[in-house]
């Protein structure tokens, strides 16, 4: 066990003296991941009471989900809302991040803070405020209203991701393009955007997930044919534990972890 006696850091502490930290951190990491992952095998259980490990395997909860028109419709609504939110929040957020980053106008700081506020103030407030306005203009339960409200929640994330990317981008490259005769727009599209494209993609995925996973705003401003998946799940959770939700959860875990892996791959290719 020579590894235990080797120094683990600049302070000459050995791995052996740090063993407790390694064990503790491993336990914490397992506790972080296990509760989510354990739902996956449970969703294939045949029993009404979700078992782990399942005594009998079956796809009945997936069949239940696929054969239910309400769940399928809700899934489509969520996918559509996520897609449209991505299409709204990414371009306007990127434009705002770029404009506010490049300009030296004294108002830019204030505008940045304004655009970040939606993640700082309680979502419930945004939800009831949007609901109140949508009631007045008869936009409750509309896809448009849901997308606009979700875009507001996604904007801060787009702004943070793109601003960080612009900070590490060398603006002289854009200057060079412009001094060679490119307009600002051309310079941005041909020089800056290709350099920050992975951050733009990450921002887009985050916008999609923000909308796809969102519960509270959807609870108020979506409904009827435009009920989202999370809204229906939340309502079902309040009543009883329906095992169908385990199958839907598994599908959602697969979606979000594949998106996470995508962003990690973006990072790899950027390095």
């Amino acid at each position: 066990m020579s590894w235990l006696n080797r120094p683990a850091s600049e302070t000459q502490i050995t791995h052996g003296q740090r063993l407790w930290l390694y064990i503790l951190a491993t336990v914490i990491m397992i506790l972080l991941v296990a509760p989510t992952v354990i739902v996956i095998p449970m969703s294939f259980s045949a029993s009404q009471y979700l078992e782990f490990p399942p005594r009998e395997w079956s796809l009945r909860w997936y069949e239940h989900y696929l054969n239910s028109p309400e769940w399928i419709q809700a899934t489509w609504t969520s996918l559509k809302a996520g897609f449209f939110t991505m299409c709204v929040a990414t371009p306007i957020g990127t434009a705002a991040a770029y404009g506010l980053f490049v300009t030296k106008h004294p108002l830019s700081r204030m505008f940045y803070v304004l655009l970040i506020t939606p993640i700082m103030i309680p979502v419930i407030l945004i939800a009831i405020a949007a609901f109140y306005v949508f009631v007045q203009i008869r936009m409750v339960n509309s896809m448009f209203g849901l997308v606009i409200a979700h875009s507001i929640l996604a904007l801060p994330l787009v702004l943070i991701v793109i601003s960080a990317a612009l900070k590490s981008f060398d603006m002289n490259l854009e200057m060079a393009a412009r001094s060679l005769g490119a307009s600002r727009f051309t310079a941005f599209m041909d020089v800056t955007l290709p350099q920050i494209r992975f951050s733009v993609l990450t921002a887009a995925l985050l916008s999609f997930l923000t909308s796809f996973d969102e519960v509270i705003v959807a609870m108020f401003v979506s409904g009827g044919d435009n009920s989202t998946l999370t809204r229906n799940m939340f309502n079902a959770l309040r009543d009883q534990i329906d095992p169908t939700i385990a199958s839907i959860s598994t599908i959602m875990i697969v979606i979000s972890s594949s998106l996470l892996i995508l962003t990690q791959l973006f990072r790899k290719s950027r390095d």
Partner: protein
Amino acid sequence: MTELSIGSDSRANESTFLKQSRREEWALLGLASPAILTVLIVMVLPVGWLFYLSFLADDGSFSLEHYNRMLESKAYGRIFMTTFEVSFITTGLCILIGYPLAYFLSQLSSRMAALCMLTVLLPFWTSLLVRTYAWLVLLQRKGLINSWGIDLGLWDEPLKLVHNLNGTLIGMVHIMLPFLVLPLYGSMKAISADYLKASSNLGAGPTQTFWNIFFPLSLPGLFAGALIVFVLCLGFFVTPAVLGGGKVIMVSMQITSNIELFFNWGAASALGVVLLVITLAILLAASRLLKLDNVLGGGH
């Protein structure tokens, strides 16, 4: 510009340049206008409207009745107490659990750290509702934790782990932990190893170096993470609603029932305004103590 320009045109040139650059500044600012207009129309104005509603009595006259009710009613006092209690305990537990984890991650080689970081990022990216549901399944009476505990002989009767404060706290700590670990990890990575080398070179043992050098330098990240967790907890809704089983009522849940059950916009708005003011006050006080820019990635 004046130094570069030659001849009598310099003045005229300068003012043209100035005018042009000013126009450009506005054009760049204009790029932010779609985003700003959306936020103004869908968030700022409606929240302002709620603010106005909170000062209206049921008959439409100006009154402070919704705020008075909050001060006088014991039920409302209890709701605020619960909200603060849950937020404090969650933040405290997140610090206790998150600090060792962030420290561990910060000590790993970059490849191992990236791998272990996935265990923090995976729950971060997974739907909050899915994670809450997972805990509901695990913690229920016949759930995995209870059946394992009884099988192993740790306890005889099924423990009441969910539909109460315990369940709420377990779920909330699990959901909030990444919000603490990520900024804390960032600030730990930024600590220069030279300080630690210098300290041990001067004869300090590992423990001494940790407490006198490393820990104080990691505090800004810890504060930032704890602040995010606390503020998010204050407005939390889904997890206490599902795991609290009606026993843990937080402000956001009361706002919802005021609207869904009682259609009382005035009372809901007043609660929302108080929640907003508390949140902003905490953020403002904190931004004086530490640079929030580091957390939120400011414009410049």
